[in-house]
């Protein structure tokens, strides 16, 4: 799902200078309302309407085929903590999100810092490093089914280094979740690399030069200049990372179906199962989705607090 950083409220549409004649102003108002109508339609039906509907469904015992869907109040929510599948899925999702968000942010920053130099072949490196991000989740999953195959790419490479193993990573309760984590860090970091790179290019060279005069080395410059000045982008990347990681679905669906033994069962995958595979659980699915939404929203706010910064563009 397409999402954008919550930092954007800083941007507000500027009022236009008032037209001289009221006839022109009225014409502009009419044109404005007409032009913006497609978005209003989208917002009212597909966003606000859909959101309200999701909450309404979450208060009912709901089935897509049933004629009567009785009101059950908060029951769908209150039963979540006692729902073993939900708690297992939530545990996996939190573990997954913590590891993925931290590592992909760090890796993306490293890639961007490495590219933000006058090295020869910079464009070549940028293009090739970005390729994991242009492929679809399905193609990436297919590639990694081959990578993680017992006689696939990973074990072949390990074999070159003298480590001979035929672990079936995706069939192992120990390795399946880390395998999906690794895949997602690999495929998402290059996107964030581009965002960091754009941010790095906005940092004035003089600040680095001043730091060099003060005798700062490469690491010191990274910690004292680059990271503090990149805080708005770090916040953006962490928020987008949280939003994405908490909704991890495609790779689970394609590669493991939540297995083995629910080792890769995530909240998003559970919602899908409750929606389309189980019966009479649509209300529960909505309660799970709303809960997931609240958690993501809360964490986004929290990360803003932690990274605590005034965002300006």
């Amino acid at each position, binding site marked *: 799902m397409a999402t954008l*950083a919550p930092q954007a409220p800083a941007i507000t549409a500027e009022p236009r200078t008032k037209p001289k004649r009221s006839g022109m102003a009225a014409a502009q108002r009419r044109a404005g309302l007409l032009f913006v109508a*497609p978005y209003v339609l989208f917002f009212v039906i597909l966003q606000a309407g859909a*959101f309200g509907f999701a909450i309404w469904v979450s208060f009912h015992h709901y089935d897509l085929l049933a004629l009567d869907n009785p009101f059950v109040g908060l029951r769908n929510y209150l039963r979540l903590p006692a729902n073993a599948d939900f708690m297992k899925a939530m545990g996996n999702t939190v573990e997954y999100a913590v590891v993925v968000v931290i590592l992909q942010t760090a890796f993306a920053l490293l890639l961007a810092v490495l590219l933000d130099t006058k090295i020869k072949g910079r464009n070549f490196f940028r293009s090739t490093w970005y390729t994991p991000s242009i*492929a679809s*989740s399905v193609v990436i999953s297919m590639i990694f089914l*081959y990578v993680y195959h017992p006689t696939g790419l990973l074990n072949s490479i390990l074999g070159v280094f003298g480590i001979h193993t035929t672990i079936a990573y995706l069939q192992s309760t120990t390795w399946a979740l880390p395998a999906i984590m690794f895949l997602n860090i690999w495929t998402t970091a290059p996107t964030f690399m581009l*965002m960091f790179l754009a941010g790095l290019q906005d940092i004035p060279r003089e600040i680095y030069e001043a730091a060099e005069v003060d005798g700062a080395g490469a690491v010191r410059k990274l910690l004292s200049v680059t990271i503090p000045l990149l805080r708005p982008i770090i916040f953006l990347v962490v928020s987008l990372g949280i939003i994405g990681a908490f*909704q991890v679905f495609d790779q689970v669906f394609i590669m493991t179906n939540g297995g083995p033994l629910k080792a890769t069962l995530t909240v998003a995958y559970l919602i899908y199962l409750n929606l389309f595979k189980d019966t009479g659980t649509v209300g529960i699915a909505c309660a799970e989705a709303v809960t997931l939404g609240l958690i993501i929203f809360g964490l986004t706010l929290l990360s803003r607090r932690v990274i605590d910064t005034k965002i300006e563009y």
Partner: protein
Amino acid sequence: MSIATPLAGTNAPIVAAEEERRPQPDTTERTNQLEAVVRYILYGIITLFLFIPFAMTVLSSFKTSAEVIAFPPTLLPSVWHPENYLRVFTETQNFPRQVFNGFFVTLIVVALNLFFDALVGYAFARLEFPFKNLLFALMIGTMVIPGFVFFVPRFIMLQHAGLINTYGALPVLYFVQPAYILLMTQFFKSIPKELEEAAIMDGLGWFGIFWKIVMPLARPALLATGILTFAGMWNNFLDWLIYMQTSNMFNIQLGLATFRSVYQNQWDLIMAGSVIAILPILIVYVAGQRYFVRGIATTGLK
């Protein structure tokens, strides 16, 4: 002499200092060279790390199924099998149709977004109308709502509209995208108003101004919106999974995913299908890299 002595006196330390300093540039040059070598090795390792899976996928797509996962592994195909690409189209059910579906729906969604995102973006950037700031704030605020919240209600809505498993489903859900409205708004704010003001004087209506004056100027932003929408829709898996139900309505992504569960061990076809699925995006990416990169940097979208 009395003058020369101090000179000589000062000269000597300078020479000494120079002699002391001279070896230094050499060592820094040497460390620079060493640093450059270490650097390129590091860059090389990262490049291999991020690129090898693709290279191996392309090579594997020319191997036999058995050779893809053969042990010990082969780098190049022992015999090249370009016919794998033909076999994907002929031996997998509905594959040509799925390629068509992907293109067809993606192009409709791109066309809708180019027009509507620009139209709405222009209104937010230039026109004065009631509730403008409120609507703009709502648009930004709702972008963080996770997509999973919307699936049930949107599914039920589409079901009532009779659009489930039709070409209409995704265009109806994605005819505008707030992120690209924002991208267009920011672009329109950045261009000078003079041309439009002249057009107002000429009595061209607002739609005329938008269509004849502003849209031709908006090429870079439209390209970014178009390319990113194309990539998002072509690569989309989840929406197709939820709103489409029969294999003749799938796109290539969903087709590949289900294909994999049916033909578990046909690695040759899985690899060739993957290459075909990535090809349009690769072409769009190479051709429009400038806009692609800028669009991602400004919207944070993939």
